[in-house]
Structure formats: C-alpha cells, structure tokens
C-alpha cells in the first residue's frame, strides 16, 4: 500500500477480519482516522468494537487485513506503532498497591523517557486527582481510577488515543468530566482519538465522525449530520437502531 500524500491520515485499517475459533468477531472492517479527528465506533454488545480497537492497538493480530499507524505497518512492526498510541481498555484496572503518581511515573518512563517530568505533570493535571494522586490507587473510587487510567493513556500526548468505552461504569458527573477532558485534550494537542461507546449522547458530543458496527461489520459510517439525514432520524439513537436493523440485527432479549 502506497501512503504518500496521506500525511494527514493517522490510522488506516483495511479489511480487518478476526476469528476466535469458529466465531467471527470482526468480518472485514475498514476505516481511516485523520489527524485531530475523534472517530467513534458504535455498536451493540458483541458487535466487534473491542476486538477492532485491540487490533488497532496492536494487541491482537487480525487473521486478515492491514493496519497502518502513522504510515507504520502495525502488523509488521507493532512495537514501533505503539509509540504513537495511547490506549485505554474498557475494563482496565489500576495496581492497588501503587499510588496514582507512581502509575503516571511508571508509564511516562516507558512511553516518553526523555520527557518524564513533563508527561507526569500533564498526567496529574489530566487526572484531576489533586493531592489524592499520592494515595494508593486501590483506595480510589471507580471514577477516580478511570480518570487516572485515562490520564495514563493521554499524558504523553500520543498521536492516536484509542479509548474503549472511556466512561464505562461511571456516574453522570464523572462521565461529563471525562468527556470534557477528552475534548479539551484533542483541542489542545491536535491528536486523533478512536473511541467506542454505547452512549449516544457521548458520541454526539464527542465524535467528529462515527461508524455503526453490527455483527463484525461497519453498517454505516460518516459525519453525524450525514447519518441522521441518511436514516431520516431525529437523533443518533434512532439512526443507530435503523442502521443495525437494516443490517439484519435482531435483539433477542425482551
């Protein structure tokens, strides 16, 4: 693949396929993310969002397809590609015996060894934990832990932040704080973000461009306004339901 003239593109994912045994988790997903863009992956549980994000973060290898991060072939050189990525997993946890500050220090030393102090300082600011940053992370509330983990993912100002359900399990107040933090971060750094979410309000507030995923495939992608027009919907929630149902998704619950 020739990438000349695509300097503004941070991520190119092409025809990604991933199977776990006989189950197909991702069935041919392609997308691009531009510099300074927040790209949202939206889909029901088990649609393949986390697998797509993990493949993009080079944690798992696709069975087929290609991923380029800042023109680096992420499948061939994952360690180099990870230098440009900050990653927040959906169900990440902290080390309970380490303080918040020690968490920041540890990750900063490994991600930005030449700018440790600067990264840690930014991390402390991003976390908003104040003096609690020196407490053991095991004593933090769920919201505080999530903010710390988000700060770890973003403190080195990576070119690409991959955030899997960044407000997962947080209360309304903490969710608002995290969303504001992401938005401010992108505005301040010009970094790109790929995030997954169930929360349409969050997606509408944060994302420049979105992709609806169902059964391991992108069923619709575009700017929120375009998608609303395409499905003649008044909000993204309605558009999402129409998009996934058009793609053959049937909810099997009550």
């Amino acid at each position, binding site marked *: 693949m020739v990438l000349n003239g695509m300097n503004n593109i941070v991520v190119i994912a092409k025809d990604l396929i991933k199977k*776990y*045994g006989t189950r197909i988790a991702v069935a041919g997903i392609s997308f691009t993310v531009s510099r300074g863009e927040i790209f949202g992956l939206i889909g029901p549980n088990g649609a393949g969002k986390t697998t797509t994000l*993990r493949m993009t*973060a*080079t*944690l*798992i*290898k696709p069975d087929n397809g290609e991923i380029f991060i800042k023109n680096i072939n992420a499948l061939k050189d994952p*360690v*180099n590609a*990870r*230098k440009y*990525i900050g*990653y*927040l*997993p959906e*169900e*990440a*946890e*902290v*080390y309970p*015996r*380490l303080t918040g500050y*020690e968490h920041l220090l*540890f*990750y900063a*030393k*490994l*991600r930005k*060894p030449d700018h440790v102090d600067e990264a840690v300082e930014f991390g402390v600011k991003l976390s908003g934990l104040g003096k609690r940053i020196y407490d053991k992370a095991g004593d933090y509330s769920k919201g505080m832990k999530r903010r710390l*983990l988000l700060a*770890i*993912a973003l403190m080195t100002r990576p070119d690409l932040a991959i955030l899997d359900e960044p407000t997962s399990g947080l209360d309304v107040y903490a969710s608002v704080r995290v969303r504001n933090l992401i938005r401010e971060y992108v505005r301040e750094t010009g970094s790109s973000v790929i995030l997954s979410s169930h929360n349409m309000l969050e997606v509408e507030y944060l994302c420049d461009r979105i992709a609806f995923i169902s059964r391991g495939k992108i069923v619709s992608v575009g700017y929120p306004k375009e998608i609303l027009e395409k499905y003649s919907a008044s909000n993204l929630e309605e558009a999402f339901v129409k998009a996934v149902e058009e793609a053959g998704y049937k909810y099997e619950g009550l």
Partner: protein
Amino acid sequence: MKGYNFKVLLWKELLDLSRDYKTLATSLLLPLIFFPLLGFLSLALVTQQPVNIAIVDMDRVELQNRLLNLTFSSTDLVDKLIDGLKKYGFNVYIANDSDVVYNSSIDLVIIIPKGFTFNLSSLNSTAHVEIYRRANVQACARAEAIARSIINGYSNAISKEKVEAIIRVTGLNATSTAILYPISTKLQLVTIGGQEVSAEVELKGLFARVLVLALSVVITPATSFIIDGIIGERERKTIEMILSLPLPVSLIIYSKLVAATMLGLLTAIADALGFVSYVVLTTMALGGSLSLPIDPILLLLHSIVAFFTILVTICIALPFITRTRGIRSASNIASGIAIIGTIVFFTGFIVDYSRLPTTIKSVLYIIPYTHSILSIQYYVVGYTFQALIHLMVLVILSFVLLLFSTKMLNTEKMLLAPPT
C-alpha cells in the same frame, strides 16, 4: 534502551512486591518463624509427655566377691537409674511388686530380679534386668533407650572393675582396656585430596543436604508469584495497558521472571536459615550441642544455585501458565512442577548424587534440578571444578529455557483467556 526499560519494569514489579505484605510474610517471615517454632514446639510437647517409670528391685542384697575383693549391690544400679532418668524429666517410682506391669498408668517397668546381685558378683554367670515397655508410645521408647544406656554404662564399669581385680589378684602383666577392648578403630576424615579434616566437615555435608532440601520449598512461592504476575494481571485487568506499551512482550515477562526469582532467592535463604535454626535449636534443647560450620562460599553457591533453579522452574512453567484459563488451572500446573522438584530435591537430601553410577547420572542430567543438587554436593566433597561445571550447565539450561519460553509467548493468549 532495553536496559533502561527493563529497569523501569523491574522497579514497578519490586515496588508492588515490597508492598505485598501477605506474600512477603508467607514467603520470608513464615519460614524464619515457623521452623524454629516447630523445633521449640515439638521439644516442648516431648517434655510435656509424662512418662511414668517404675523400678522394682526384687533382689535388694549386697554381696561380696572375696576372691576379687569387690562388693556388689542391686541398689547401686537402682540409684543410677533413678538419678539418670530423673535428669530427663521422667517420673520415677520405686515399686515392690512386679505386678506393677499391669498398672496402666506406668509406661516403663524395670525389674531387677532375685539373684541379680549374685550373678553380677560371680565370674561365670550374667545378671539380667527385665524391661517392660508400653508399645507404640514414642516417649516410652526414648525412656527405654536412656535406661538401656544407663544399664550398659553400669555393666561396662562393673566389667572394668572385675578385670582390674583379676589382674591384681593374678599378677598378670595386663590392662583392663587391652582385655576388654583388644581391637580399637581409628577414624580419620580426609578430603578428596587426602588432607585430614575435622568432623565439622561432616556437619558441612549435613548442612549442604539441608540446603538442597530447602530448594524444594522455594519453587512454589516463585511460581505462584509468576502466575500472579501474568494470569493474576489478566484477571485483575491490569495487563492490557502494560501490553499496549511500546515494548517487546518478552521484556515485560523478563522483569516478572527476575522479580519472581528474587523473591524465590530470598525465600531460599529464609528457608535455609529456618531449617538450620530448627536443627540447632532442637539439638540444643534435647541436651546436645551442634555448631554448624557456616561456609560463606557454600552459602554463595547455594544462593546462585537457588536463583537459577527458580529461574529454570519458572521457564518450564511459563509456556503452560500463559496458555491457561485462570489462576486455578495455572496453579495446578505449577503444583505439578513443584511436586517433581520436591521429589528430586528430597532424593538429593538422602542420596549422594555424586556417587551414583554414570549411567543413572546421565539419565538424571535431563532434569535441570539434578545439576542444582550436583553443584552443591560436589562442592561439599571437594570437587570444586565439577561443582562449577554443573552450575554452568544449570545457568546455560536456564537461559536456553528462558529464550525458548519467551519465544513461545503470545500477547493474544496472555490477554485473552483461552476458550473452554
């Protein structure tokens, strides 16, 4: 850069470990407290077991052998038995009747039958003492052994007196020692090179065996720690962020291996100290004295051997551990390896591997732990070169297995539990 990253990863592992008080207490403090406590406790319980001994002197006479000009009395032996047995804390009673054997509260009965003094004083018959011991009572067996040694001591003293009297009466040019002990043996301990050494060297050998046995108990905490470091991180959901760092996964694993091995090494030292204090304290408490010669080179060798033994164990376990579903199945694998290790090290405690035939040794060489044992055993018997060779083999095996196990690492398998 790799060195810097490794240091940072190791810093985090050790910082986390240093605050894991439960692991530290169970791995380090427990053997230091547990083994001496075991020694004290077993001794305290032994001395708390009351043993009731009855002595029945049915003879109670004093006779003189006019020819030898010696006087004999059953009371002499009774007095010696009372004094000797009371010293060890046994309850000693004097009974008048041999029916005391049927008294259930009496554990040991020593009967001096009628005619004992007569036989003792004669030159052509043997005096007998009857001992009745309650079966299957350990404390009674100890009391019986002590009573026998008192009787034997008394018997030897009487022999000597009689022989000296015969020499005196007959005017023979003889000594009691030459008659009683016509053959004597002399033992001199020597090294492989033939140099004379003291009995302390034997103790060094005992100490080395203890060190070999101590290796068996360090495998488990080290493998548990590595299981916790990999499977535990997956279950606690901390591994994904670590794996997303711009580092080769092998470097992350190396830091965990070294931290686990360091913990194992400290455990090995704590266990060895615990074992030694157990042996010394129990021996001292039982009235003996034992000063173990501490050879700093042997301790250093043991530390190095322990380090690489743990590393080898973890490297063997690693490919299996990273492919298991959870801590329980990983622990089962680790237990299997620990059992093999325990069996091998226990045989190293009772068998001189260095003396085994080459054919058997050649087969055993396949097991890395054989080199751990041989390295220590060869050093103790003076074969320093062979000890170094086996240490080198252990080191090489460790690195080969380390490379092999990290080559088999798979980020995806570490991140996602395999399907059932």
